[in-house]
């Protein structure tokens, strides 16, 4: 039999031990905002918040760094959640009508969430339809021994807690109906139970609200109706006033009523007051209302919905009312649920300190104690996708100087944000302080770059950079919704930052490169724009230097049919402290930039598109080089992205997605499934034959073969083995590599002398696979340090004595070539062996858990199958392999970034990064503890 060609290392036990000390795969934490949240709960005693999602996940958050996750066995929507206050237990209701009890457990001094038991309400009789036992509301009693369950059939069942055993004292409508006056009955049923609320003073009494409008105060002990409130408007929700002397009901007509409770009048016909805030025209239902008393005066009324149907029926609003103060918070996505953080102890008043609103796409917290009700920035649950993420970039070991400047620039941006303490502060964060600062940069569709603190468990926003303001776009006028000119009623206030609508798709950020020592940043976008920015602590008002680089280089017979370039603003522009644009280079034709790199020490940037690449000296503001990489037969690249049917389909699909995202109202579900079906159709190819694949090697004139995939700068030996110097490398989609020797003048002569570039080598990989990455290794086989690291004594100088080598990673294989001869030294043919293709690669330094100073460099590779391979360099021997991402999750694979120390991030939804670790040493995971007093353990009672 043919010898197996896979060159695995033998089972050398010593090597295996070293590998164990170096590599370990863990998915550690999810950053960002949970995708499709569906339920919210809060425990005022433990000060923990829980969010349930449509995929059945429960995420618990406390003070920053305290977070843990549980996942239901079935992928069903979590429709309701309740904490058993102070016990560290959570009850969840799924849309498959099952109840689940979760416990926060302590494992190795760190908390986690585990499911303990589950329960389904049994049908009462055979005739009764299953929908009758469908649970509508849950009420765990404050003393946590009893759970009241309201159903669609109008019955209320009682379960013992925490064992979830059904008690034989269910309350059905017929029992209530006996005490209801005949004229109210009209032979109609009361409808489903809409609300259950425990009396704030008498724990034995609960308020039961039925859909038809009837509200009953029921005594559990005596099984007797204390009071009847004959509401005539369809009920949405109920809330007690703290004293228990009155309660408030909200209704489907957009109004709310205040009812007074007194033992003298067992049957109340009319409420004390009834208000329709946004009347008199028909309004939408008030889905939920909260009534909070305040020491300072009149109570706060907070409710969601209730907007005038005709004029603002499509807005997602939450109203805060207190005396004459009235604010209508206007959100960009649907309100899922909200709660207030307020005093619950023996205090006389609620005195709410904060309002927490869970929206479909973000979490908004309002400070209710500060005048004007400003928002409090959340330390976690960052809405990463406030505009769709188009690229990500990670910087390890950020110097303190740069860190502080970015943080201070970010602080100056925050307007209408208070810096009061975060109101949800349960649990203790036990994770050690991060050893180094890490920055995550995300590029967005709207032309912004957001800077995130990725050092720890919670991804915190630091600074937001916008590049749109240097261009003239059609949408220059500010968002007019909140601007004057609009009538002042209702008093809308735009809150939150989720804004999925991009002004101009050309603004989208494609590539980012930051020099962490000099504070120079390059961002490149969809319309061929490459912007060089300097970090400045001062406000500035200046003109931007604009240069155009023609990447076609007089190639004839091509016409660009894609979008135009973005017209830069003429005149000076005011820039706030932070990263300020200095130079704008525009590639012609204005195709999306596919690769960018920066060498701040040499004042050079290199950029590439589907047509070629360019080199630009941003100090002298002069182009150094432009090279066309187009193949003469490549028409697709020339015509631009909008000309082909395939791309049209793609853009259609994208717009469908956008519509789907924006259609957040549940009522529109029909149309959204239609959209999905349409999108599905669009995705289907014209091919109807059974799935078959053509076996044909890549040819030189495949379309888009000229796309520049990677660029890199290196100080190495290109022309001969004795003189090293600056070089620039570019790799294309068709397996071509271009290496240029650069003549960079010394620091003092930057201004006088120009940079020269001379083509040194051109390598054509015979297998023609796209070149994914190029890196130069020094004489010891280590990657070259970054610019400034050597001159500022931040890194060991590279070995310039031994011969350098260049590592070229294509989609199919890795190869190390000796320099300057470019003779092949080692290679690994991944695709030929495994049938997978390389998607992302990175050079990573793995340090050992066993010894502080032992580390190895490795080549980390993510394939199209979603698995991660680590290879030794420069020997290219396979070390470990882990399954990481589902292979169907194409956007997850495309979004993956690796850090220099062996961690990585990828998008698990448009709004969440999964963080993982390949290193056995460098792991960022939540370590936290929640202390609570659980009276009896469920394991005993079960």
């Amino acid at each position: 039999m043919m010898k197996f060609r896979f060159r695995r290392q033998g089972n050398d036990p010593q090597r295996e031990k070293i590998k164990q000390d170096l590599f370990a795969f863990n998915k550690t934490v999810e950053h960002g905002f949970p995708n499709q949240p569906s339920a919210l709960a809060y425990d005022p005693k433990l000060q923990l918040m829980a969010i349930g999602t449509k995929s059945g996940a429960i995420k618990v958050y406390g003070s920053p760094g305290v977070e843990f996750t549980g996942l239901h066995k079935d992928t069903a929507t979590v429709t309701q959640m309740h904490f058993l206050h102070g016990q560290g237990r959570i009850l969840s209701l799924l849309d498959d009508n099952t109840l689940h009890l979760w416990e926060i457990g302590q494992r190795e001094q760190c908390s986690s969430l585990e499911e303990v038991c589950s329960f389904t309400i049994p049908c009462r009789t055979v005739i009764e339809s299953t929908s009758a036992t469908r649970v509508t509301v849950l009420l765990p009693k404050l003393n946590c021994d009893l759970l009241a369950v309201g159903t669609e059939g109008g019955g209320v069942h009682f379960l013992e807690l925490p064992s979830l055993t059904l008690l034989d004292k269910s309350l059905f409508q017929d029992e209530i109906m006996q005490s209801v006056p005949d004229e109210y009955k009209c032979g109609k049923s009361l409808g489903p139970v809409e609300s259950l609320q425990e009396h704030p003073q008498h724990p034995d009494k609960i308020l039961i609200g039925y859909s038809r409008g009837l509200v009953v105060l029921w005594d559990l002990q005596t099984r007797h109706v204390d009071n009847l409130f004959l509401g005539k408007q369809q009920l949405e929700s109920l809330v007690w006033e703290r004293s228990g002397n009155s309660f408030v009901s909200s209704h489907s007509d957009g109004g709310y009523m205040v009812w007074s409770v007194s033992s003298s009048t067992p049957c109340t016909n009319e409420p004390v007051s009834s208000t329709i805030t946004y009347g008199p025209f028909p309004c939408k239902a008030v889905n939920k209302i909260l009534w909070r008393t305040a020491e300072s005066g009149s109570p706060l009324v907070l409710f969601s919905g209730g907007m005038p149907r005709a004029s603002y029926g499509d807005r997602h609003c939450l109203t805060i009312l207190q005396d004459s103060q009235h604010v209508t918070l206007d959100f960009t996505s649907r309100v899922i649920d909200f709660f207030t953080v307020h005093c619950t102890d023996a205090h006389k008043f609620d005195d709410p300190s904060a309002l927490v609103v869970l929206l479909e796409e973000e979490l908004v917290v309002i400070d209710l104690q500060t005048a004007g009700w400003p928002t409090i920035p959340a330390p976690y649950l960052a809405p990463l996708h406030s505009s769709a993420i188009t690229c990500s970039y990670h910087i390890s070991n950020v110097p303190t100087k740069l860190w502080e400047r970015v943080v201070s620039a970010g602080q100056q941006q925050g307007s209408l944000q208070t810096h009061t303490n975060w109101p949800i502060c349960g649990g203790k964060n036990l994770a050690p302080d991060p050893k180094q600062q890490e920055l995550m940069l995300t590029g967005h569709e709207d032309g912004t770059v957001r800077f995130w603190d990725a050092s720890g468990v919670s991804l915190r926003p630091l600074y937001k950079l916008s590049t749109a303001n240097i261009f003239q776009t059609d949408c220059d006028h500010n968002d007019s919704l909140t601007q004057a000119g609009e009538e002042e009623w209702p008093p809308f206030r735009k809150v939150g930052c989720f804004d999925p609508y991009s002004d101009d798709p050309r603004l989208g950020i494609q590539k980012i490169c930051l020099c962490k020592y000099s504070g120079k940043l390059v961002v490149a976008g969809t319309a061929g724009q490459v912007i060089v920015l300097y970090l400045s602590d001062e406000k500035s008002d200046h003109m931007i230097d604009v240069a155009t680089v023609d990447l076609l280089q007089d190639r004839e017979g091509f016409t660009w049919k894609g979008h135009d370039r973005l017209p830069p603003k003429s005149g000076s522009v005011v820039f706030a402290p932070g990263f300020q644009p200095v130079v704008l280079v525009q590639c012609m034709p204005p195709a999306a930039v596919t690769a960018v790199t920066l060498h701040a020490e040499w004042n050079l940037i290199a950029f590439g598109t589907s047509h070629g690449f360019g080199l630009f000296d941003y100090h002298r503001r002069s182009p150094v080089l432009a090279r066309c990489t187009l193949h003469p037969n490549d028409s697709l690249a020339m015509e631009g992205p909008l000309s082909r049917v395939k791309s049209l389909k793609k853009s259609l699909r994208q717009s469908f997605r956008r519509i789907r995202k924006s259609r957040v109202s549940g009522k529109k579900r029909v149309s959204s499934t239609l959209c999905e079906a349409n999108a599905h159709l669009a995705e289907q190819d014209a091919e109807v034959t059974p799935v078959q694949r053509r076996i044909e090697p890549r040819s030189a004139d495949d379309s888009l073969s000229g796309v520049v995939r990677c660029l890199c700068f290196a100080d190495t030996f290109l022309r001969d083995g004795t003189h090293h110097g600056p070089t620039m490398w570019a790799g294309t989609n068709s397996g071509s590599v271009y290496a240029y020797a650069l003549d960079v003048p010394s620091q003092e002569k930057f201004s006088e002398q120009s940079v020269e570039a001379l083509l040194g080598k051109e390598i054509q990989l015979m297998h023609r696979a796209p070149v994914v990455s190029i890196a130069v290794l020094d004489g010891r086989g280590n990657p070259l340090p970054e610019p400034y690291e050597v001159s500022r004594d931040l890194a060991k100088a590279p070995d310039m004595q031994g011969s350098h080598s260049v590592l070229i990673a294509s989609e199919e294989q890795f190869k190390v070539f000796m320099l300057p001869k470019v003779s092949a030294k080692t290679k690994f043919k991944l695709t030929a062996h495994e049938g997978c293709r390389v998607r992302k690669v990175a050079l990573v330094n793995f340090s050992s858990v066993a010894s502080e100073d032992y580390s190895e460099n490795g080549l980390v590779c993510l394939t199209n199958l979603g698995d991660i391979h680590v290879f030794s360099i420069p020997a290219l021997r396979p070390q470990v392999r882990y399954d990481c991402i589902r292979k169907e999750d194409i956007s997850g694979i495309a979004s993956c970034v690796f850090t220099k120390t062996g961690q990585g991030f990828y998008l698990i939804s448009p709004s969440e990064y999964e963080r993982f670790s390949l290193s056995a040493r460098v792991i960022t995971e939540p370590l936290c503890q929640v202390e609570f007093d659980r009276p009896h353990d469920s394991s005993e009672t079960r």
Partner: protein
Amino acid sequence: MNKNHRVPSSRTLSAVEVKSKFGAEFRRFSLDRSKPGRFDEFYGLLQHVHRIPNVDLLVGYADIHGDLLPINNDDNYHKAISTAAPLLRLFLQRKEEAEYSAFGTNSLTRKKTPAALAAVLLRPDANRKKPPVIISLPKDFRPVSSIIDVDILPETHRRVRLYKHGQEKPLGFYIRDGSSVRVTPQGLEKVPGIFISRLVPGGLAESTGLLAVNDEVLEVNGIEVAGKSLDQVTDMMIANSHNLIITVKPANQRNNVVRNSNTSYYSYSAPGAVAMTPSHIIQNFRPEEVESDDDEEEDLVIETGGDMRLAPLSAAGATASYSMPSLPRYEPHLNLRHSNGAMATSSSVGSLSTNERGLERRNLEEDGTVITL
């Protein structure tokens, strides 16, 4: 050299009568059919009997179908000896004035007699009406496909090697998902498999006749495809497309190669298949040759001046340099490649016999030309 003496003709049944013609001269001698010896010995013998020790010769013979076929290695020499019935007619030409067009494959359909062929050789100019199609030297023939490892594979399987060589002809086949039935300890079991779904007319795969629609693909270049997805197998095949070795279980099990017990390299010689697929040469390859990574085409490095060279494998001794004339019919960008292993061995072994050198050279040519600076 003198192992094969002139033996009186018809002395034994095992003798092969040889009638060798060089120019206007004939020589007759005989060879032992059971002990034909090696080609280089035979070649020396021919030079000896014709008394032309320093003339480079092109040796041809008339086979049973009347085709004029070359003798230039052990294999076709043995073939010639074994098929001689009992007379073996040889036609010798000086290499420098050789008439290559006479060799060929279609002579069967042309129904040319050996005499007519001889006439062509004898009077090269007389019968020529139009300029003949120039085909390359026999030594330039390179294999297009082969069946390999017959001795180690089950008879129901076939391992096919396709040589793409950057030629214009497409590989020309498609694969699909499917299921096949396997015998397992638990009984018959349906397992997913990969099958050839389509052959492109005129493509390499079709022209070999060795692959057919619905053949199950079992291995690609020695790696089992079981458990791999269609896309994975596609990527593996494309990554190996320059030298693709597919092990299939043919859907049609009637044309299987019958294993010959005493030869480890079986020559695929089903006459029907030869007639069907006249345009390719069937050759045998040693397993180690298949295994070696050196079939890899090398990357092209263009230096500043625009000169080209291949990236030499430094491990194999970067000093090895071979100057081969470039073949003008090749586009350099597509076809430049060489065989490093062959290079390394041939440069390290100082004196090679003609035969071995011939083999080595052909190995090189299989992989194209080498340009060194």
